[in-house]
């Protein structure tokens, strides 16, 4: 096999490397380690951290991409398959390949739709045919017979990527512009306010649709750069993250501007200025730590909003690539399944359960982190 590095994989690696470097630098700093130790002491903190790390490891496994080598004639140059797989696909091979004909209910032994089957007596009748893998599909199968559990697990990477990359794109704008607007006031404030008011007054979906279409045109124009289907949908996903990030910072920025307006009048900021401490340092040491609780809460709430936004945008047709497995596409598909008779509910239910657990764990974990980082609530149980 041959490893493949998609753009998003590269970004994930970069993110991991940065995190590892930060951990390495902070490994002896008691002041930094202490709050995290406190998070891990509580039951809620431990359980949610475990759930999150499960999700993250699934996402990471799903980010190790490769193409398989095809059996080739000896002496010929190696041939590779056109389908990009991930380590997760490798691990999930049993449920990945156990494809049925069409819908089957969770843990069912028979298909969900009647077909003409040949009975043992040789008479043909309409009946629910036997599944190829009876009882093997925990969440049932979808329209084309793919295992829904497999789809859900594959969706995790998309959800995490949209949530985290968009946040990473958004945070510098929100933090930098929001705090700067509140702290400096005057002309700086005017310009920043003008910027986000303008951005807010453009309908978000319209802007996103336009940007995604532009990206699509660019992809077509440079087809040689994106030679696999996986690469194309990957770039589209990144573009979506970027555009969601660039338009999504206004809410948090406004919140931070108001908080910074309040904080800059506080006397500890004045005291720092009386020491001749520079503006950058004041922003970094006095304002930023005092707005972190807002940032944390907003980011976690936004995270669930982003996963949902992906579903909404897929519905409009400007979301992730329709071929990409994501919660959004699952929910989008469920629209028709709910309208059909009898109702197919398990695809929606699976997407719901996986997203619900992720968002709830993230929220609870963020609460614990916020409490641990706040010196006032430290030591309280």
């Amino acid at each position, binding site marked *: 096999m041959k490893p493949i590095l998609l753009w998003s994989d590269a970004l994930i690696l970069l993110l991991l490397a940065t995190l590892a470097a930060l951990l390495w630098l902070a490994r002896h700093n008691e*002041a930094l380690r202490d709050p995290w130790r406190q998070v891990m002491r509580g039951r809620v903190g431990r359980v949610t951290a475990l759930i999150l790390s499960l999700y993250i490891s699934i996402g990471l496994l799903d980010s190790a991409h490769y193409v398989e080598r095809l059996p080739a004639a000896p002496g010929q140059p190696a041939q590779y398959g056109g389908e990009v797989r991930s380590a997760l696909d490798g691990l999930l091979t049993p449920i990945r390949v156990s494809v049925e004909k069409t819908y089957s209910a969770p843990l069912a032994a028979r298909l969900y739709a009647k077909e003409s089957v040949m009975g043992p007596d040789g008479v043909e009748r309409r009946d629910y045919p036997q599944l190829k893998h009876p009882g093997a599909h925990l969440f049932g199968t979808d329209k084309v017979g793919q295992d829904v559990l497999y789809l859900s697990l594959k969706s995790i990477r998309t959800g995490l990527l949209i949530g985290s990359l968009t946040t990473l794109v958004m945070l510098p704008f929100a933090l930098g512009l929001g705090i700067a607007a509140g702290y400096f006031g005057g002309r700086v404030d005017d310009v920043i306010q003008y910027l986000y008011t303008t951005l807010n007054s453009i309908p978000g979906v319209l802007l996103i649709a336009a940007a995604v279409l532009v990206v699509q045109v660019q992809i077509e124009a440079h087809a040689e750069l994106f030679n696999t289907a996986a690469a194309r949908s990957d770039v589209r996903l990144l573009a979506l993250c970027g555009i969601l990030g660039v338009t999504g910072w206004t809410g948090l920025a406004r919140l931070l501007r108001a908080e910074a307006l309040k904080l800059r009048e*506080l*006397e*500890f900021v*004045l*005291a*720092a*200025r*009386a*020491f*001749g*401490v520079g503006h950058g340092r004041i922003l970094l*040491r*006095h304002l930023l*730590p*005092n707005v*972190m609780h807002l940032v944390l809460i907003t980011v976690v709430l936004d995270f669930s909003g982003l996963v949902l936004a992906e579903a909404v945008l897929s519905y409009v047709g400007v979301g992730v690539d329709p071929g990409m497995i994501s919660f959004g596409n699952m929910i989008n598909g469920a629209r028709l399944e709910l309208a059909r008779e009898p109702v197919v509910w398990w695809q929606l239910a699976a997407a719901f359960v996986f997203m619900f657990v992720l968002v709830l764990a993230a929220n609870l974990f963020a609460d614990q982190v916020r409490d641990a980082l706040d*010196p*006032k609530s*430290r030591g309280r*149980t």
Partner: protein
Amino acid sequence: MSVSHGRPKEREHPLGGTARSAKGALMGGLVVENLRIEIPVAGRTLVPVDGVSFRVETNECVALLGESGCGKSMTALALMRLLPEGARIAKGSVKLGTPAEELFTLPEAAMGKVRGGRLAMIFQEPQTSLNPVMTVAGQIAEALAAHLGLRGAAAQAEAVRLLEAVGLTRGHLTAYPFQLSGGQRQRALIAMMLAGEPEVLIADEPTTALDVTVQAQILELLRGLQRQRGMGLLLITHDLDVASDMADRVAVMYAGQIVEWASRDQIYTTPRHPYTQRLFAVLPRLERRGQRLDSLPGRVPPPDSVFTGCRFAPRCAAAFSRCHEEIPAFHEAAPGHFARCHLAASPAWQAASPDSQVANPIFTSRGSPLAARATILEVRNLAVHFPIRRGLFRRAVGSFKAVDGVSLSLHAGETLALVGESGCGKSTLARAILRLIEPTGGSVAVAGEALAGLSGEALRRKRAEMQIVFQDPYASLNPRMRIGDILEEGMAALLPLAAAPRRARVKALLDQVGLPLDAASRYPHEFSGGQRQRVAIARALAVRPKLLILDEPTSALDVSVQAQILDLLAELQVAHGLAYLFITHNLPVVGYLAQRVAVMRAGRIVEEGPVEQILTAPRHEYTRLLLDSAPGGGITARHKRCM
């Protein structure tokens, strides 16, 4: 009023004084007996108020006096049955009026009638106790409709009558709270509370947020209304001078209990509880210049403490073994004078205190005369004008002159007090001197070098010579930084020190301001207000300044803590030859600490001179007004008394 002397001296008779008339019949008013408030928190029970009994007769003013955290506001809220969630009344009774009606057993609907009707309360913060989106008329009409059933023209007429009674006019009826000044808001609130014709009015620190001249007016108004309407007035205050001006009787609270209860004259002439005595001993006065203020060591015990003896024993200079073993009864030590102290009847311990003051002179000789010393600060015609902008293009249509041509000079080792009411520009002046705000005109020179035109490195170097300590110890320390980091911040910015000597200096500074060395690794919220103010002082001292601007450094602190901070400031001045620009509105502190006083009003200095002259023979009428408004009969009167 007479007292039955034969009454057994025990806790069950805590009312004392004029509690019962000679015939034993109740006289109406408000009777509180054995009030106990509990707050269950995580398996423990906090008891912020424990066994409080007192009585407010109709037609008298009772002051409930105590430092912050002693339970006086909790008591007031319990009387109104407005305790915050989680707190509950565990025991006790409150009876109001004749025939006495028990308030704690009333159903909530009936209590709603009493609240704001027969028993009314005004709060400390006039900003937040009025609804900002309702007019004054609307809010008074609400009270009138609820308690007197008045509506329409009758309500309007009554509202005008009430406004006039509190010194406002008909024109204020249609005003919204934001259109009124702090004093006017407090008057409007009083008018609202009078609408229900209360038998007893509870005033919880009604003037703490107000300027001294406004405070005098409001106190006078309250006193006048109380006499005129024959109400009872329960005045909750931390200010000994306010209590002495207002009260007929005084209850002193400490750690959730009343420790002393007597007439005003008895308390102020012969305090019988050591805590009360200490409170007087820590008050700064002009006549106590150069003496160390008596200190009240330690802190008020937290509300979850378990007491085996007297609650004040750990801080009491006169404590002996019995104090730690036996809870002192609240008994009548002298006719009408109740105290919770084993020694209340004998004066043995009372002599100790004055000696200790004389034994601790803090700065007896001052070395060379001030005039011969170096001038640290020279301010010439300093002006700060804020432009008033209007219209689409925000053109400046005028300017607000916050500081308007101020000149000052200050020598090494000298303290210049800058006195004025809020909004007079004194804090703006301080910030302009430090160039935290760019002055519009005039010049500032620190240690002979003009600040104007300095920038970059030169300005930073200059900043090390001048530092500031702020008023609010809760806002002046970054809650997310450890004390050590807070102290190092200035050094890192201004002093060329490596990390190790910086940490050594942090230790030295903590020691200097009397904080434990392990404070460096802790966060500000773990410290009390006084300790935080010590940190703020240490932070300013860290860069070895020559000039320290103290912007109301003690006005957010309790008197006992204020005394500790003033002592510390005096010590540091002697040790380092610091020049202090002491900004305050508190005249007794000025008399105690400053050598010269400048009185500021509307951006200008109206009078300046040596402290003795300003405080005893002021020339400007505004200075006279300030002095006359100061509670406790004013500095002038007190000074004359002691001469």
